[in-house]
């Protein structure tokens, strides 16, 4: 775990002069599954978008050793894939056509898809278990299937780094668990996954490293055990918690202690 694949140096994002996320300096390594956690509105998605060069930022971001701000769209798309929290596609493209868009960076401007592209699309769809849905539209599939199709698209980009923005937000507990188990598998194969995640227990179970964002900056970075401590959680989420290890399954459990006055009317 010594290969740095992504490096952030003093990265800050401002909107209308207000800081959304500030001074993030971090290295990310090959094979890590990093969960970005924190309360709403603290800049988790913003940080992910800045890494993917979708937002203007201050500081430097290096992907595979290159300053991404100076790289072409194609280079960045071959370095990192990005999966949005919600995707609405206005026309009835089939799942296969959507996954094929992941090969765009590998095609010249006049070329259509090659046999190689078709082979890779077939492979990633089989890998994520959506081959049987290839002729279906996104409107015709379930939430879990839709996310797996979009994940197949991200995989079709064949990138070392995958940036996922709340990939399980529309999924039930079982499907979320399946999805994260799959992420863990991808990381074992050498991918680096950085994902925004709201479910702290899910993050603790599957992520090898957590970045806790609060007060618009990273307030804790480390293994789930190191980060998910009541004092950090209190700082980031403004809630009192009891964090303990569930001995039956060896998992971290986070129990919220009712906190009077947190909501109006309490």
């Amino acid at each position, binding site marked *: 775990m010594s290969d740095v694949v992504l490096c952030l140096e003093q990265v800050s994002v401002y909107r209308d002069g207000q800081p959304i996320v500030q001074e993030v300096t971090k290295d990310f390594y090959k094979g890590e599954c990093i969960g970005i956690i924190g309360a709403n509105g603290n800049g988790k998605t913003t940080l992910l978008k800045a890494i*993917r060069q*979708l937002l*203007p930022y201050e500081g430097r971001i290096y992907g595979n050793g290159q300053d991404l701000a100076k790289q072409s*769209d*194609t280079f*960045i*798309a*071959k370095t990192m*894939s*990005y*999966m*949005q929290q919600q*995707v*609405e*596609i*206005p*026309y*009835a*493209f089939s799942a296969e*056509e*959507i996954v094929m*868009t*992941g090969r*765009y*960076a590998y*095609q010249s*401007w*006049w070329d*259509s898809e090659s046999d190689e592209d078709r082979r890779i699309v077939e492979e990633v769809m089989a890998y994520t278990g959506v081959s049987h849905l290839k002729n279906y539209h996104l*409107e015709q599939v379930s939430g879990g299937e839709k996310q797996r199709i979009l994940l197949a*698209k991200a995989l079709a*980009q064949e990138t070392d780094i995958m940036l996922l923005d709340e990939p399980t937000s529309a999924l039930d507990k079982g499907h979320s668990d399946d999805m994260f188990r799959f992420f863990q598998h991808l990381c074992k194969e050498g991918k680096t996954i950085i994902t925004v995640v709201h479910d702290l227990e899910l993050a603790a179970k599957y992520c090898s490293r957590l970045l806790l964002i609060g007060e618009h900056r990273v307030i804790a970075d480390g293994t789930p055990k190191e980060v998910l401590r009541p004092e950090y959680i209190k700082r980031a989420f403004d809630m009192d918690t009891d964090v303990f290890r569930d001995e039956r399954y060896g998992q971290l459990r986070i129990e919220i202690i009712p906190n009077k006055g947190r909501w109006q009317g309490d």
Partner: protein
Amino acid sequence: MNRPWFYMVGMMILLLVLIVVSLCMGIIPISANDFLHLTEEQERILYFIRLPRILVAISIGMALAIAGAVIQGVFGNPLADPGIMGVVSGASTGAVIAVALGLSSVSAYYMPSFAFIGALTALGITMSLSWYKGRMDPRILLLAGVAISMLLGALTSGILTLMNEYRLKEFLFWMVGSLEYRRWDHVLIALPSIAVGTAIIIALSKHLNILVMGEVEARAVGMNTNRYRMIFLVLSAMMTAISVCVGGSIGFVGLVVPHMVRLLVGPDHRIVIPASALGGACFVLLCDTLGRTLFHPVDVRVGIMTAVLGTPYFLFLLHRLKVKGGSL
């Protein structure tokens, strides 16, 4: 043969049939048998009147339908119209200025030229308004297009109130969209430029499939969205401008044809664009042929016919949306 190609071949056959029918029908009917032994008069009618009119109808139909398909792709909105960027209003203002200055009676080229300049000016203003921090915002582009259209509409109306009745009529005839008296001059303006535009858009059509996925999705897979959005908007505006210059304002083609085509051949723009070109050509030629023969001797202008045939389809779509919900 798979489904899209089946429809494409069908539309090609339909277009050929329409061309033959349109050649035959008119004040002086020419039967299929006559083609073997044409009189000099029939030859002149075919060569100087019907053939150029048919070619202009086909060119305009192709241009408007492709422009519509492109605009609907760029905005990810199946109900977007080529006039959305103020191009049609700009062309109208240009044309009315040519008429007001009395230039349209000097040469037939003045009105199309002024209309073209007007269209490009409107496009330039709309685009520059939507440019912010090095990126083009499609939402602002839409709103700027509406605002510019309204402003130019007011300007056109203002100039119209100052014109005499003869000139007013001249402009009105142009505005409702007509293919009457279209000659080889018009074919030479429309056909080569529209053919080149069509070829370029077909060559780039795979990029529309990416652009339609939305800004973030398109950039995530490595597209320079700014560059391609700009290219597609300029190309579709040019296609619209050329067709408006030659045939006036012909509505509903860019809205209805690509939509119908998508229902038949699916959403892939590599098929949608050429299929829209064929569909648009068929639609405008059909409307023009019906317009000039149904109520003979009255020549019902093609712009009126496209609206008469297009509106029911549009209302049907709205009804479907109301009843079934979901997407169009």
